[in-house]
């Protein structure tokens, strides 16, 4: 039986394997060392990334909270040099602009989303791509559009909150469209087909079956779009002009929280800076509540459905 034994050193494959094992073992120490260094660098970068981000949030909270008092939420902004005042006019402006923009863009965006979800042709592809690119267009150029289209062309040179809402709406629209399409495409096909098999028309299927089923995703998308729209500053600078008095009429110039932050941050007066920090905290809280709320709401709705 000894004849079955073969000479291992003659087998080329085994020879190669031994060679590889030798090289790998010889380089193991070096490879482990460089791995440790590189992984260490990754950890260091994580640290470097966390420090400024935490610092921004911490500073805004620490500097902004002292500004929060009754006056801050109930009084309007005052001219520089005069103590006191709040941001009530800016809260009204931001809320009103946000509401108008949302009320108009949600139905339009949702119908566009339905259109995109139900079409696969070249035209739909082009619209989808346009919407994607529009979500990344520099917001100041959309502010220019709001200025040209509404301030100059429609209202003959008058700044207004409506122009601001128009610009903010243009920023929100593609976000809602794409989020809506994604959510609608996520609805299982058999729901669709079951409704059609029962004799429902397409519009009924969309209204009664598809859109309700896609609601968690749609709500998430809408809230994220609102969060993004409320934080925009540049388009508002070119459209709503700012107004230190309380103004409810959206056809007139209005104040908004981002404008207060932007205009007050370069002022030399401590009390105005205080208000800027307070407004920054308020804006950040609103945006974060919308972002977190969208996730929580989506999770809850998702769970209910199961």
């Amino acid at each position, binding site marked *: 039986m000894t004849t079955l034994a073969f000479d291992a050193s003659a087998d080329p494959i085994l020879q190669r394997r031994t060679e590889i094992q030798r090289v790998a073992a010889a380089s193991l120490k070096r*490879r*482990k060392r460089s*791995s440790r260094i590189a*992984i260490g*660098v*990754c*950890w260091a*970068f*994580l640290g470097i*990334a966390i420090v*400024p981000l935490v610092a*921004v*949030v911490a500073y*805004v909270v620490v500097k902004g909270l002292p500004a929060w008092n009754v006056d801050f939420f109930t009084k309007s902004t005052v001219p520089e040099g005069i103590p006191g005042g709040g941001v009530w006019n800016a809260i009204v402006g931001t809320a009103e602009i946000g509401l108008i923009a949302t009320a108009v863009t949600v139905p*339009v965006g949702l*119908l*566009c989303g339905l259109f995109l979800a*139900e079409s696969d042709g070249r035209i739909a592809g082009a619209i989808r791509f*346009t919407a994607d*690119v*529009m979500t*990344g*267009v*520099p917001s*100041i150029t*959309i502010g*220019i*559009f709001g200025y*040209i*289209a509404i301030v100059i*062309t429609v209202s003959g040179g008058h700044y207004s909150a409506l122009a601001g809402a128009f610009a903010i709406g*243009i920023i929100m*629209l593609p976000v809602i469209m794409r*989020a809506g399409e*994604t959510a609608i*495409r996520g609805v299982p096909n058999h729901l669709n087909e079951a409704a*059609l098999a029962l*004799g429902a*028309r*397409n*519009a009924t299927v*969309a209204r009664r079956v598809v859109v309700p089923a896609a609601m968690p995703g749609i709500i998430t*998308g809408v809230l994220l779009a609102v*969060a*993004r729209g*409320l*934080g925009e*500053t*540049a388009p508002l600078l*070119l459209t709503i002009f700012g107004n230190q008095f309380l103004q409810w009429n959206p056809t007139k110039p209005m104040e908004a929280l981002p404008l207060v*932050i*932007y205009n007050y*941050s*370069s002022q030399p007066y401590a009390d105005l800076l205080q208000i*800027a920090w307070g407004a*920054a905290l308020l*804006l*950040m809280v609103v*945006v974060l509540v919308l*972002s977190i709320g969208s996730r929580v709401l989506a999770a809850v709705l998702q769970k209910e459905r199961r």
Partner: protein
Amino acid sequence: MTTDDNPLPGGARRGSRFALPNSAYRAILGAVAAVFVGLVGWFLVSIVLKAQPAFSTLGFSWIVQKTWDPTHDKFGLLPFILGTIETTAIALVLAVPIGLGTALALAYLVPHRLRAGLSTTVELLAAVPSVVYGLWGLLVLAPLYRDYVEPFLTTVLGWTGLFDGTDQGVGLLLAGSILFVMILPTMVAISRDVLAVVPNEQVEGAMALGATRWQVLRKVVVPGARTGILGGFTLATGRALGETVAVALVIGNSNYIAHSLKSPAATLPSLIVNNFGEATGTELSALFGAGLVLLVIGVGVNALARVLVRNVASTGGAASVAVA
């Protein structure tokens, strides 16, 4: 599938009493989509038309001329185009390695229990309004840069000539740094997403072959997610190029080409927002022209990013959130 002639009696017909015929439904959807296309068209046409007077009075060369002096009818955009490129470049030099390292750490190194929480936090930070970053940059970071960072960099790297001039805090370097902080969450959220979906079999296969942790990341994970990472970085670049208020607050706003990293400068968006209030006639048209140049650059970068990221961004993941 057409249900226009509903054959069912009674209840089934009642349910569809308010339902539109399919053709009308499709027509409405098409019309609304056409409204969107019309808005985008109006957007492009209005900017081109309003910028046109600047091009017809000044020709095309004003875009690359270096003097911006409205009182003498000089509207060179070169300082602002350079400022836009320089601030974005500073932000990217910092954000690319740090963003990639952070994303790798979040996707593979941080203990499992912390991963979801940290990743969500990063995504939420991407939603913080840019004006808040600007406020922080101007009131907190600028004094720090003036008193510590800039003197230190001048001592260490002064021989390169990049840090000539006085320490002012505000300037190119600070603007680039703020953009870095601002685009970091976007970059990390997208990169983390695409890094995390590299198939486990590949990672495990590499480990089984005796690769070290870093070799797995470097040779398997990063190449596997290459396109998505690139797309995420391009999107972040688009954000940096178009950022207006955060930059306008911290760049110092000078109409001259910066001669060092500490010099005040301006970008296309900051030029527009700072001069818009008082501008009339050719100057206003030139500002619209600056917007048009910015739009062309922004659309180019974004279209590239979308092509790169298109196949990678999974539905409903952080990528789509951060992109939004």
